């Protein structure tokens, strides 16, 4: 007798990715570069976030041909993005055998009110969060992995740092709180009470939490690891740099040895130019991806 899609199997899959780098790719060739550089998984997309930002319009699930092409090209796990609340995109990706689905604010939300009920799926989900309330809501819906939202496609780490710090600070508050204060904390943060109790008891989130949204250099990746990330997603940072293979390899090394500054210095040398990047203040409020979802 065996059980498919249990919490342990879904959360465990993310545990195996810890200390690793997950890279956005748009075709088989990029997927192979990522795998060769030591990525623990790839995210198959039609366009990387910075191109989505530049193109405007509605961003949807990638063409299944691209996802399939990537799945056939590599032996590491393949993730893909579905729009927030888009039940059918998620079910299609699940049916295709994608290893993890990102219910992602990088795509245009399909539902501005409700996120997917992720515990009904066999495939595990990763979701973005900016604070403990959002993290706990997503866990409550069945997310098996979290990541900071950051501000995707900007190459600017400031928002990911803000979100990681916020989550860590609030976990510490919760852990040190007396139990009779938790319900009020739940009300104030719009967070499910039971999930908060679980976090309090463990002293950490019950699922892995990666950094995402603005990682552009090896030093950025190492910074996020120091702030408590379990691993790193790199979106536009790799294939928008002028030497992707080099960038990919260097970011993997910096993530593994995030406290070895000599090594980070060494891998950062003559690496080529990082993606150009965007100042957050220049992004119109309605263009901010992190405000999608709740």
């Amino acid at each position: 007798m065996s059980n498919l899609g249990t919490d342990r199997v879904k959360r465990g899959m993310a545990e195996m990715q810890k200390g690793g780098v997950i890279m956005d790719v748009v075709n088989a060739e990029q997927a192979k570069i990522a795998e060769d550089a030591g990525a623990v998984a790839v995210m198959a997309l039609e366009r990387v976030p910075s191109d989505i930002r530049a193109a405007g319009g509605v961003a949807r699930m990638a063409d299944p041909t691209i996802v399939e092409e990537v799945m056939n090209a590599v032996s590491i796990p393949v993730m893909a993005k579905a729009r927030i609340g888009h039940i059918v995109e998620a079910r299609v990706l699940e049916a295709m055998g994608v290893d993890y689905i990102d219910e992602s604010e990088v795509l245009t939300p399909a539902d501005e009110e409700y996120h997917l009920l992720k515990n009904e799926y066999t495939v595990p989900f990763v979701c973005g969060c900016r604070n403990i309330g959002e993290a706990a809501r997503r866990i409550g819906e069945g997310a098996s992995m979290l990541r900071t939202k950051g501000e995707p496609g900007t190459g600017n780490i400031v928002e990911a740092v803000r979100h990681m710090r916020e989550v860590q600070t609030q976990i510490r508050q919760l852990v040190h709180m007396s139990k009779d204060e938790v319900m009020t904390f739940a009300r104030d943060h719009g967070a499910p009470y039971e999930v908060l109790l679980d976090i309090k008891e463990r002293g950490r989130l019950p699922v892995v939490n990666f950094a995402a949204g603005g990682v552009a250099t090896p030093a950025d990746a190492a910074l996020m690891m120091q702030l408590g990330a379990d691993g790193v997603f790199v979106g536009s940072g790799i294939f928008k740099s002028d030497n992707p293979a080099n960038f990919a390899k260097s970011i993997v090394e910096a993530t593994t040895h995030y406290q070895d500054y000599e090594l980070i210095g060494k891998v950062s040398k003559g690496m080529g130019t990082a993606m150009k990047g965007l100042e957050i203040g220049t992004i119109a409020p309605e263009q901010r991806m992190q405000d999608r979802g709740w």
Partner: protein
Amino acid sequence: MLKIGVLGLQGAIEEHIRSIEATGAEGIIIKKKEQLDEVDGLILPGGESTTMRRLIDQYDFFEALVSFGERGKPIFGTCAGLILLANDIVGQDDAHLKLMNMKVQRNAFGRQKDSFEAKLDIKGVAEQFEAVFIRAPYIAEVGNDVEVLATYNDSIVAAKQGSLLCSSFHPELTDDHRLTAYFVNMVEQSKQEVVS
């Protein structure tokens, strides 16, 4: 106190440390090859085997790991760790550490949506062990010197060869520490043999 290392390049490292500590031994995360001299036994954790192999080469761990195994120091490989130990990998020209006389099939049960939990009997270790399989490999063939410890639907999922132990599943993801305790005991015995 017995010291057991967990190769700390990538994967479920802290979970193994927790499991080792639950059995009463000391768990040490191994990030540099010199640290291998400090430990009595080593766990190769689950993670992505291709990623781990890259990092093993990059940090010059390869020879040190092979020599650790060849000197008879116990190694326990789980999931990706099992793949690293094998002599032969189905569909690949080359394998990794080549310490165990067996041929493994990667992602043998399918993709993530086919990942599962099942109760297993592990010979000489535990009955009804809660085994968590995640994109797991299985052992397709074993040599004469390899003892099969557990099967799932006729596929080999745990085995032992002298001081080397491996499982397709993840004992570190549950609170059932019996398999880890079995390995800790192997380490203890090997240490006594060295002393005597």
